[in-house]
Protein backbone atom coordinates (compact mmCIF):
# COMPACT_ATOMS: atom_id res chain seq x y z
CA UNK A 1 0.00 0.00 0.00
CA UNK A 2 2.71 2.37 1.07
CA UNK A 3 4.91 1.73 -2.00
CA UNK A 4 1.90 2.17 -4.22
CA UNK A 5 1.36 5.60 -2.76
CA UNK A 6 5.01 6.55 -3.15
CA UNK A 7 5.05 5.35 -6.74
CA UNK A 8 1.96 7.35 -7.47
CA UNK A 9 3.41 10.42 -5.89
CA UNK A 10 6.60 10.03 -7.87
CA UNK A 11 4.58 9.72 -11.04
CA UNK A 12 2.63 12.88 -10.29
CA UNK A 13 5.74 14.83 -9.45
CA UNK A 14 7.46 13.64 -12.62
CA UNK A 15 4.54 14.90 -14.70
CA UNK A 16 4.79 18.23 -12.92
CA UNK A 17 8.51 18.42 -13.42
CA UNK A 18 8.43 17.45 -17.05
CA UNK A 19 5.81 20.06 -17.89
CA UNK A 20 7.68 22.80 -16.04
CA UNK A 21 10.99 21.63 -17.49
CA UNK A 22 9.62 21.66 -21.04
CA UNK A 23 8.39 25.18 -20.61
CA UNK A 24 11.68 26.42 -19.21
CA UNK A 25 13.63 24.79 -22.05
CA UNK A 26 11.35 26.30 -24.66
CA UNK A 27 11.65 29.68 -22.98
CA UNK A 28 15.45 29.58 -23.02
CA UNK A 29 15.43 28.33 -26.60
CA UNK A 30 13.11 31.12 -27.65
CA UNK A 31 15.15 33.82 -25.95
CA UNK A 32 18.38 32.56 -27.47
CA UNK A 33 16.85 32.57 -30.94
CA UNK A 34 15.97 36.21 -30.49
CA UNK A 35 19.33 37.36 -29.17
CA UNK A 36 20.33 38.83 -32.53
CA UNK A 37 17.01 40.69 -32.75
CA UNK A 38 17.16 44.30 -33.87
CA UNK A 39 18.42 46.95 -31.51
CA UNK A 40 16.32 49.59 -33.22
CA UNK A 41 13.94 52.11 -31.74
CA UNK A 42 11.26 49.45 -31.36
CA UNK A 43 13.44 47.44 -28.97
CA UNK A 44 11.53 48.43 -25.83
CA UNK A 45 8.07 48.34 -27.41
CA UNK A 46 5.70 45.76 -26.03
CA UNK A 47 5.12 42.85 -28.41
CA UNK A 48 1.70 42.69 -30.01
CA UNK A 49 -0.59 39.74 -30.50
CA UNK A 50 0.92 37.13 -28.18
CA UNK A 51 -2.60 35.71 -28.23
CA UNK A 52 -5.59 36.76 -30.28
CA UNK A 53 -7.85 37.31 -27.27
CA UNK A 54 -8.02 36.96 -23.50
CA UNK A 55 -9.55 33.52 -23.85
CA UNK A 56 -8.09 30.45 -25.57
CA UNK A 57 -10.41 27.41 -25.53
CA UNK A 58 -10.77 26.75 -21.78
CA UNK A 59 -8.03 28.98 -20.39
CA UNK A 60 -7.44 32.69 -19.89
CA UNK A 61 -4.45 34.21 -21.69
CA UNK A 62 -2.22 37.18 -20.88
CA UNK A 63 -4.20 39.34 -23.33
CA UNK A 64 -6.62 41.95 -21.98
CA UNK A 65 -9.05 44.27 -23.82
CA UNK A 66 -7.90 47.80 -24.68
CA UNK A 67 -8.81 50.60 -22.27
CA UNK A 68 -12.48 51.44 -22.67
CA UNK A 69 -13.24 48.40 -24.82
CA UNK A 70 -16.06 45.92 -24.25
CA UNK A 71 -15.83 42.24 -25.15
CA UNK A 72 -18.89 40.06 -25.45
CA UNK A 73 -18.15 36.36 -25.03
CA UNK A 74 -20.40 33.54 -26.18
CA UNK A 75 -19.05 30.12 -25.18
CA UNK A 76 -20.81 26.93 -26.17
CA UNK A 77 -20.02 23.28 -25.42
CA UNK A 78 -21.97 20.50 -27.12
CA UNK A 79 -22.34 17.03 -25.57
CA UNK A 80 -19.69 14.29 -25.75
CA UNK A 81 -19.08 12.89 -29.22
CA UNK A 82 -19.28 9.29 -27.89
CA UNK A 83 -22.79 8.53 -29.19
CA UNK A 84 -21.81 9.11 -32.80
CA UNK A 85 -24.63 9.61 -35.27
CA UNK A 86 -27.30 8.95 -32.65
CA UNK A 87 -27.04 12.58 -31.47
CA UNK A 88 -24.77 13.71 -34.35
CA UNK A 89 -21.58 13.72 -32.24
CA UNK A 90 -23.13 15.57 -29.34
CA UNK A 91 -24.77 18.37 -31.30
CA UNK A 92 -28.25 17.25 -30.17
CA UNK A 93 -27.08 16.30 -26.67
CA UNK A 94 -27.38 18.54 -23.61
CA UNK A 95 -25.13 21.53 -24.01
CA UNK A 96 -23.57 24.11 -21.75
CA UNK A 97 -23.48 27.82 -22.52
CA UNK A 98 -21.81 30.85 -21.02
CA UNK A 99 -22.34 34.47 -21.93
CA UNK A 100 -20.06 37.12 -20.54
CA UNK A 101 -19.04 40.74 -20.82
CA UNK A 102 -15.52 42.05 -20.17
CA UNK A 103 -14.45 45.65 -19.89
CA UNK A 104 -10.94 47.08 -20.12
CA UNK A 105 -10.55 49.68 -17.38
CA UNK A 106 -6.94 50.39 -18.36
CA UNK A 107 -4.61 48.83 -20.94
CA UNK A 108 -3.60 46.30 -18.32
CA UNK A 109 -6.62 45.76 -16.10
CA UNK A 110 -9.98 44.26 -16.99
CA UNK A 111 -13.09 43.22 -15.11
CA UNK A 112 -15.97 41.10 -16.28
CA UNK A 113 -19.17 39.27 -15.50
CA UNK A 114 -20.59 36.10 -16.98
CA UNK A 115 -23.23 33.46 -16.38
CA UNK A 116 -23.08 29.77 -17.15
CA UNK A 117 -26.07 27.52 -17.73
CA UNK A 118 -24.85 24.51 -15.73
CA UNK A 119 -25.24 25.08 -11.96
CA UNK A 120 -26.55 28.59 -12.75
CA UNK A 121 -23.14 30.09 -12.08
CA UNK A 122 -22.87 33.87 -11.80
CA UNK A 123 -19.24 34.76 -12.23
CA UNK A 124 -17.26 37.94 -11.54
CA UNK A 125 -13.66 38.10 -12.64
CA UNK A 126 -10.66 40.35 -13.13
CA UNK A 127 -7.29 40.16 -14.82
CA UNK A 128 -4.22 42.34 -14.44
CA UNK A 129 -1.26 42.25 -16.80
CA UNK A 130 1.80 42.74 -14.58
CA UNK A 131 4.49 42.54 -17.27
CA UNK A 132 4.45 42.72 -21.04
CA UNK A 133 7.16 41.11 -23.15
CA UNK A 134 9.21 43.58 -25.21
CA UNK A 135 10.42 43.32 -28.82
CA UNK A 136 14.05 43.01 -27.72
CA UNK A 137 13.18 40.47 -24.98
CA UNK A 138 14.56 42.83 -22.32
CA UNK A 139 11.40 41.61 -20.61
CA UNK A 140 11.27 38.01 -21.89
CA UNK A 141 7.72 37.10 -20.84
CA UNK A 142 4.28 38.58 -20.41
CA UNK A 143 2.82 37.92 -16.97
CA UNK A 144 -0.78 38.31 -15.86
CA UNK A 145 -2.79 37.40 -12.77
CA UNK A 146 -6.38 36.26 -13.08
CA UNK A 147 -9.00 35.70 -10.42
CA UNK A 148 -12.68 34.94 -10.33
CA UNK A 149 -15.55 34.39 -7.94
CA UNK A 150 -18.48 32.23 -8.98
CA UNK A 151 -21.82 32.16 -7.22
CA UNK A 152 -23.92 29.03 -7.63
CA UNK A 153 -27.42 30.48 -7.90
CA UNK A 154 -29.41 27.24 -7.87
CA UNK A 155 -32.23 26.74 -5.38
CA UNK A 156 -30.93 26.50 -1.82
CA UNK A 157 -32.29 22.98 -1.35
CA UNK A 158 -29.36 21.86 -3.54
CA UNK A 159 -26.95 22.79 -0.75
CA UNK A 160 -28.36 20.45 1.91
CA UNK A 161 -29.46 21.06 5.47
CA UNK A 162 -27.05 23.59 6.97
CA UNK A 163 -27.41 26.08 4.17
CA UNK A 164 -25.29 29.23 4.34
CA UNK A 165 -24.86 31.77 1.54
CA UNK A 166 -21.11 31.10 1.51
CA UNK A 167 -21.85 27.52 0.34
CA UNK A 168 -22.57 29.01 -3.08
CA UNK A 169 -19.13 30.53 -3.54
CA UNK A 170 -16.15 29.13 -5.40
CA UNK A 171 -12.90 30.76 -6.40
CA UNK A 172 -10.29 30.33 -9.09
CA UNK A 173 -6.99 32.17 -9.36
CA UNK A 174 -4.22 31.75 -11.88
CA UNK A 175 -0.80 33.10 -12.71
CA UNK A 176 -0.23 33.33 -16.46
CA UNK A 177 3.24 33.45 -18.00
CA UNK A 178 3.50 33.69 -21.79
CA UNK A 179 6.26 34.03 -24.33
CA UNK A 180 5.83 35.07 -27.95
CA UNK A 181 8.58 33.29 -29.88
CA UNK A 182 7.93 34.98 -33.22
CA UNK A 183 4.98 36.32 -35.22
CA UNK A 184 3.67 32.79 -35.64
CA UNK A 185 4.18 31.00 -32.35
CA UNK A 186 3.33 31.70 -28.68
CA UNK A 187 3.29 29.52 -25.56
CA UNK A 188 1.74 30.05 -22.14
CA UNK A 189 2.20 28.33 -18.80
CA UNK A 190 -0.29 28.82 -15.99
CA UNK A 191 -0.38 27.38 -12.48
CA UNK A 192 -3.77 27.82 -10.82
CA UNK A 193 -5.54 27.38 -7.50
CA UNK A 194 -9.18 26.40 -7.17
CA UNK A 195 -11.26 26.56 -4.02
CA UNK A 196 -14.88 25.57 -3.38
CA UNK A 197 -16.58 26.48 -0.08
CA UNK A 198 -18.86 23.49 -0.42
CA UNK A 199 -18.30 20.44 -2.60
CA UNK A 200 -20.04 17.15 -3.28
CA UNK A 201 -19.36 14.34 -0.79
CA UNK A 202 -15.68 13.25 -0.75
CA UNK A 203 -14.65 15.86 -3.30
CA UNK A 204 -11.71 18.01 -2.23
CA UNK A 205 -12.21 21.71 -1.54
CA UNK A 206 -8.86 22.85 -2.96
CA UNK A 207 -7.00 21.91 -6.11
CA UNK A 208 -3.77 23.12 -7.66
CA UNK A 209 -3.51 22.67 -11.41
CA UNK A 210 -1.10 23.46 -14.24
CA UNK A 211 -2.01 24.56 -17.71
CA UNK A 212 0.05 24.77 -20.88
CA UNK A 213 -1.33 26.45 -23.99
CA UNK A 214 0.11 27.30 -27.37
CA UNK A 215 -0.85 28.85 -30.65
CA UNK A 216 0.67 28.62 -34.14
CA UNK A 217 -0.46 30.81 -37.01
CA UNK A 218 -1.07 28.99 -40.29
CA UNK A 219 -2.23 32.05 -42.27
CA UNK A 220 -2.39 35.78 -41.46
CA UNK A 221 -5.81 35.40 -39.83
CA UNK A 222 -6.02 31.70 -38.91
CA UNK A 223 -4.17 29.71 -36.29
CA UNK A 224 -4.09 26.25 -34.70
CA UNK A 225 -3.97 25.98 -30.93
CA UNK A 226 -3.80 23.46 -28.12
CA UNK A 227 -4.29 23.59 -24.40
CA UNK A 228 -3.51 21.05 -21.68
CA UNK A 229 -4.67 21.18 -18.06
CA UNK A 230 -3.29 18.90 -15.37
CA UNK A 231 -4.87 18.94 -11.91
CA UNK A 232 -2.22 17.92 -9.36
CA UNK A 233 -3.62 14.89 -7.59
CA UNK A 234 -0.75 14.61 -5.12
CA UNK A 235 -1.19 12.45 -2.03
CA UNK A 236 0.50 14.91 0.35
CA UNK A 237 -2.02 17.51 -0.65
CA UNK A 238 -4.96 15.15 -0.42
CA UNK A 239 -7.89 16.00 1.82
CA UNK A 240 -9.44 12.52 1.77
CA UNK A 241 -7.71 9.15 1.63
CA UNK A 242 -9.58 8.01 -1.44
CA UNK A 243 -8.50 9.07 -4.92
CA UNK A 244 -11.83 8.01 -6.38
CA UNK A 245 -12.98 11.57 -7.02
CA UNK A 246 -9.73 12.81 -8.53
CA UNK A 247 -10.41 15.11 -11.46
CA UNK A 248 -9.09 14.19 -14.90
CA UNK A 249 -6.73 16.18 -17.12
CA UNK A 250 -7.96 18.06 -20.17
CA UNK A 251 -6.71 18.40 -23.71
CA UNK A 252 -8.20 20.97 -26.07
CA UNK A 253 -7.18 21.61 -29.66
CA UNK A 254 -8.75 23.51 -32.50
CA UNK A 255 -8.63 26.41 -34.91
CA UNK A 256 -8.94 30.12 -34.33
CA UNK A 257 -9.89 32.88 -36.74
CA UNK A 258 -9.30 36.48 -35.73
CA UNK A 259 -10.59 39.65 -37.35
CA UNK A 260 -10.54 43.28 -36.28
CA UNK A 261 -13.74 42.95 -34.26
CA UNK A 262 -14.35 39.20 -33.83
CA UNK A 263 -12.51 36.09 -32.69
CA UNK A 264 -13.87 32.61 -33.46
CA UNK A 265 -12.52 29.43 -31.88
CA UNK A 266 -13.81 25.95 -32.75
CA UNK A 267 -12.22 23.07 -30.90
CA UNK A 268 -12.38 19.63 -29.28
CA UNK A 269 -12.10 19.47 -25.50
CA UNK A 270 -12.65 17.22 -22.47
CA UNK A 271 -14.02 20.03 -20.33
CA UNK A 272 -17.74 20.75 -20.27
CA UNK A 273 -18.02 23.15 -17.32
CA UNK A 274 -16.76 26.34 -19.06
CA UNK A 275 -16.17 28.03 -15.68
CA UNK A 276 -12.55 27.11 -14.79
CA UNK A 277 -13.04 25.99 -11.16
CA UNK A 278 -15.84 23.67 -12.22
CA UNK A 279 -13.60 22.17 -14.91
CA UNK A 280 -10.55 21.74 -12.69
CA UNK A 281 -12.31 20.08 -9.76
CA UNK A 282 -15.12 18.08 -11.34
CA UNK A 283 -13.94 16.90 -14.76
CA UNK A 284 -14.54 13.17 -15.23
CA UNK A 285 -13.96 13.03 -18.99
CA UNK A 286 -10.77 11.15 -19.77
CA UNK A 287 -8.43 12.01 -22.63
CA UNK A 288 -7.47 8.33 -22.95
CA UNK A 289 -11.10 7.20 -23.22
CA UNK A 290 -11.78 9.69 -26.00
CA UNK A 291 -14.35 11.61 -23.95
CA UNK A 292 -14.15 14.67 -26.16
CA UNK A 293 -16.77 17.23 -27.07
CA UNK A 294 -17.02 19.99 -29.64
CA UNK A 295 -17.01 23.54 -28.37
CA UNK A 296 -16.82 27.04 -29.75
CA UNK A 297 -16.06 30.50 -28.41
CA UNK A 298 -17.16 33.69 -30.11
CA UNK A 299 -15.85 37.06 -29.02
CA UNK A 300 -17.18 40.39 -30.24
CA UNK A 301 -15.31 43.62 -29.48
CA UNK A 302 -17.04 46.98 -29.42
Amino acid sequence: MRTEYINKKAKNISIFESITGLFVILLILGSSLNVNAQTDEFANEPVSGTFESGLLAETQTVATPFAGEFELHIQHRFGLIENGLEDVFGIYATSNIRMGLNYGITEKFMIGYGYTKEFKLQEFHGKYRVLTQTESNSIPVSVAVYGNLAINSQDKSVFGNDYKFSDRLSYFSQLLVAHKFNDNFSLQFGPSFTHFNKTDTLVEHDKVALSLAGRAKVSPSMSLFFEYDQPLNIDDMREFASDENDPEANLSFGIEIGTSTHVFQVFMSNYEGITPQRNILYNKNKIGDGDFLVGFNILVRF
Partner: protein
Amino acid sequence: MKTFKIFILVAIALVGFSFTIQQKKATPWEIPAEYKKMENPLANDKASVNKGKMVYMKHCRSCHGNKGLGDGPKAARLKTFPGDFSSAEFQAHGDGELFYKSIIGRDEMPNYEKKIPSKKDQWAVINYLRTFKK
Protein backbone atom coordinates in the same frame (compact mmCIF):
# COMPACT_ATOMS: atom_id res chain seq x y z
CA MET B 1 -47.78 41.17 -68.56
CA LYS B 2 -44.58 41.30 -70.57
CA THR B 3 -44.35 45.10 -70.27
CA PHE B 4 -44.92 44.72 -66.52
CA LYS B 5 -41.99 42.28 -66.29
CA ILE B 6 -39.77 44.63 -68.26
CA PHE B 7 -40.90 47.49 -66.04
CA ILE B 8 -39.94 45.51 -62.91
CA LEU B 9 -36.53 44.63 -64.37
CA VAL B 10 -35.85 48.26 -65.27
CA ALA B 11 -37.00 49.37 -61.82
CA ILE B 12 -34.65 46.86 -60.10
CA ALA B 13 -31.79 47.93 -62.36
CA LEU B 14 -32.45 51.59 -61.58
CA VAL B 15 -32.59 51.01 -57.84
CA GLY B 16 -29.41 48.94 -58.01
CA PHE B 17 -27.69 51.55 -60.14
CA SER B 18 -28.69 54.41 -57.87
CA PHE B 19 -27.08 52.54 -54.96
CA THR B 20 -23.83 51.99 -56.81
CA ILE B 21 -23.40 55.59 -57.88
CA GLN B 22 -24.07 56.75 -54.34
CA GLN B 23 -20.54 55.70 -53.36
CA LYS B 24 -18.52 58.83 -53.92
CA LYS B 25 -14.84 59.28 -54.59
CA ALA B 26 -12.90 60.39 -51.54
CA THR B 27 -12.22 64.14 -51.22
CA PRO B 28 -8.54 65.12 -50.89
CA TRP B 29 -7.03 64.57 -47.44
CA GLU B 30 -5.72 67.37 -45.29
CA ILE B 31 -2.54 65.87 -43.89
CA PRO B 32 -0.70 67.78 -41.13
CA ALA B 33 2.84 68.89 -42.03
CA GLU B 34 4.44 66.75 -39.31
CA TYR B 35 3.09 63.59 -40.96
CA LYS B 36 4.05 64.76 -44.47
CA LYS B 37 7.72 64.85 -43.53
CA MET B 38 7.59 61.86 -41.18
CA GLU B 39 9.99 59.09 -42.10
CA ASN B 40 9.34 55.38 -41.83
CA PRO B 41 11.57 54.08 -39.00
CA LEU B 42 11.01 50.45 -40.00
CA ALA B 43 13.17 48.82 -42.67
CA ASN B 44 11.16 47.62 -45.66
CA ASP B 45 12.33 44.00 -45.48
CA LYS B 46 10.64 40.62 -45.75
CA ALA B 47 10.00 40.34 -42.01
CA SER B 48 8.25 43.69 -41.77
CA VAL B 49 6.19 43.02 -44.90
CA ASN B 50 5.07 39.68 -43.44
CA LYS B 51 4.13 41.34 -40.17
CA GLY B 52 2.31 44.04 -42.12
CA LYS B 53 0.39 41.41 -44.05
CA MET B 54 -0.83 39.83 -40.80
CA VAL B 55 -2.08 43.18 -39.52
CA TYR B 56 -3.62 44.07 -42.90
CA MET B 57 -5.48 40.75 -43.18
CA LYS B 58 -6.90 41.23 -39.71
CA HIS B 59 -7.87 44.89 -39.71
CA CYS B 60 -7.95 46.25 -43.28
CA ARG B 61 -8.89 43.44 -45.63
CA SER B 62 -12.66 43.49 -45.04
CA CYS B 63 -13.00 46.91 -46.72
CA HIS B 64 -9.83 47.35 -48.76
CA GLY B 65 -9.78 43.85 -50.25
CA ASN B 66 -7.11 41.17 -50.47
CA LYS B 67 -5.17 43.10 -53.11
CA GLY B 68 -5.88 46.62 -51.87
CA LEU B 69 -8.26 47.40 -54.75
CA GLY B 70 -10.99 48.67 -52.42
CA ASP B 71 -13.21 45.67 -53.18
CA GLY B 72 -13.44 43.91 -49.78
CA PRO B 73 -16.75 42.35 -48.70
CA LYS B 74 -17.70 45.37 -46.57
CA ALA B 75 -16.66 47.98 -49.17
CA ALA B 76 -20.04 48.08 -50.94
CA ARG B 77 -21.74 49.33 -47.78
CA LEU B 78 -19.42 52.32 -47.43
CA LYS B 79 -20.43 55.79 -48.61
CA THR B 80 -16.90 56.52 -49.82
CA PHE B 81 -14.82 54.38 -52.18
CA PRO B 82 -11.94 53.00 -50.04
CA GLY B 83 -9.35 53.71 -52.74
CA ASP B 84 -7.16 51.65 -55.05
CA PHE B 85 -3.80 50.99 -53.36
CA SER B 86 -2.24 49.66 -56.57
CA SER B 87 -2.67 53.01 -58.36
CA ALA B 88 0.30 55.26 -59.11
CA GLU B 89 -1.58 58.13 -57.45
CA PHE B 90 -1.79 56.26 -54.13
CA GLN B 91 1.76 54.94 -54.25
CA ALA B 92 3.07 58.50 -54.91
CA HIS B 93 2.26 59.40 -51.29
CA GLY B 94 5.11 59.45 -48.79
CA ASP B 95 5.16 56.89 -45.95
CA GLY B 96 4.22 59.55 -43.40
CA GLU B 97 1.17 60.54 -45.43
CA LEU B 98 0.08 56.91 -45.74
CA PHE B 99 0.64 56.53 -42.00
CA TYR B 100 -1.72 59.42 -41.28
CA LYS B 101 -4.38 58.06 -43.64
CA SER B 102 -4.06 54.48 -42.36
CA ILE B 103 -3.62 54.91 -38.63
CA ILE B 104 -5.14 58.31 -37.77
CA GLY B 105 -7.98 58.16 -40.30
CA ARG B 106 -11.07 60.35 -40.78
CA ASP B 107 -14.83 59.87 -41.35
CA GLU B 108 -15.47 56.30 -42.51
CA MET B 109 -11.81 55.34 -42.22
CA PRO B 110 -11.55 54.61 -38.48
CA ASN B 111 -8.67 55.50 -36.19
CA TYR B 112 -6.45 52.47 -35.56
CA GLU B 113 -4.13 53.82 -32.86
CA LYS B 114 -5.93 51.70 -30.26
CA LYS B 115 -6.63 48.59 -32.32
CA ILE B 116 -3.06 48.44 -33.67
CA PRO B 117 -1.24 49.74 -30.57
CA SER B 118 2.29 48.64 -31.53
CA LYS B 119 4.26 51.30 -33.47
CA LYS B 120 6.11 48.51 -35.23
CA ASP B 121 2.85 46.96 -36.45
CA GLN B 122 1.59 50.38 -37.58
CA TRP B 123 4.64 50.97 -39.81
CA ALA B 124 4.67 47.33 -40.95
CA VAL B 125 1.25 47.90 -42.54
CA ILE B 126 2.66 50.83 -44.51
CA ASN B 127 5.45 48.58 -45.80
CA TYR B 128 2.86 45.99 -46.81
CA LEU B 129 0.78 48.62 -48.66
CA ARG B 130 3.87 49.24 -50.85
CA THR B 131 3.67 45.67 -52.14
CA PHE B 132 0.37 46.47 -53.90
CA LYS B 133 2.21 48.72 -56.37
CA LYS B 134 1.69 47.61 -59.94
